[in-house]
């Protein structure tokens, strides 16, 4: 079996493309899913994809600013998860549903 034509060193663009793929998956989940918790999980997926971009560009520029920024993104995501899940709990307590289409009192 001939050896696969793989480059010995990974091009940086591959990391960015992986980040784009994960971000697109997060967008798809955010748009198509109807469970509030799953929509929230998709948001976390998007944040993770963006973090990968930050770290890749940090490697390219040989500066650690990207790492620090993605650390801040993580902290904000943790705070957002705490508040968001509290909102989901309140919604469930008042409506007994997790379907995102049935929680529409802010519409119109």
């Amino acid at each position: 079996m001939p050896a696969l034509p793989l480059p010995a060193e990974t091009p940086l663009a591959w990391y960015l493309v992986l980040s784009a793929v994960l971000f697109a998956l997060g967008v798809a989940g955010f748009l198509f899913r109807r469970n509030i918790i799953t929509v929230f999980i998709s948001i976390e997926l998007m944040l993770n994809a963006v973090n990968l971009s930050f770290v890749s560009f940090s490697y390219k520029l040989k500066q650690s600013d990207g790492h620090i920024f993605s650390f801040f993104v993580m902290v904000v995501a943790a705070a957002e998860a705490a508040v968001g899940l509290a909102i989901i709990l309140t919604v469930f307590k008042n409506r007994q549903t997790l379907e995102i289409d049935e929680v529409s009192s802010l519409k119109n």
Partner: protein
Amino acid sequence: MNTILFLILAVVAVGCGINVILQTHPISSALSLVGVMGALAVLYLQLGGEFIAAAQLIVYAGAVMVLFVFVIMLLNAGKEQKSRARIWVRWAGPPLLLLFVGAVAYVLEAALPPSPPVRFGGFDGGTVKAIGERLFTEYLLPFEVTSLLILIAIAGAIVLARKEID
């Protein structure tokens, strides 16, 4: 070796990512997301981000996902009903998504100036020492503001979780 590791991790991450949006039960989605986060942590390590890889595992895969799983268990969330998406949305969505990713990949390959290929140990600015030094000197104000943000988030979460809305 580096490339093979990257490809394995990329397949794991994308497979788990697809699983996140295809599973109908929230708990399966949450556990697939843990898979994505684990793969990303190793990728960060490959890119020289030791601190960020550890933080990813501790903060994301540990704390945030435990919070998610707690809430899913607490609400006893069942299977999700089928989406009522229109038929053309259902059929046009995935190709458009692929088109978007393809466009991004093309732009990245074409427009980005040639960058050094990634090899393990090629960048050592992501150690705990380096990050800590910058975090507590240059980025001291954002760091302190972050602590305030977390305090507000804690208070907000407690208030929201106790409140009854009429």
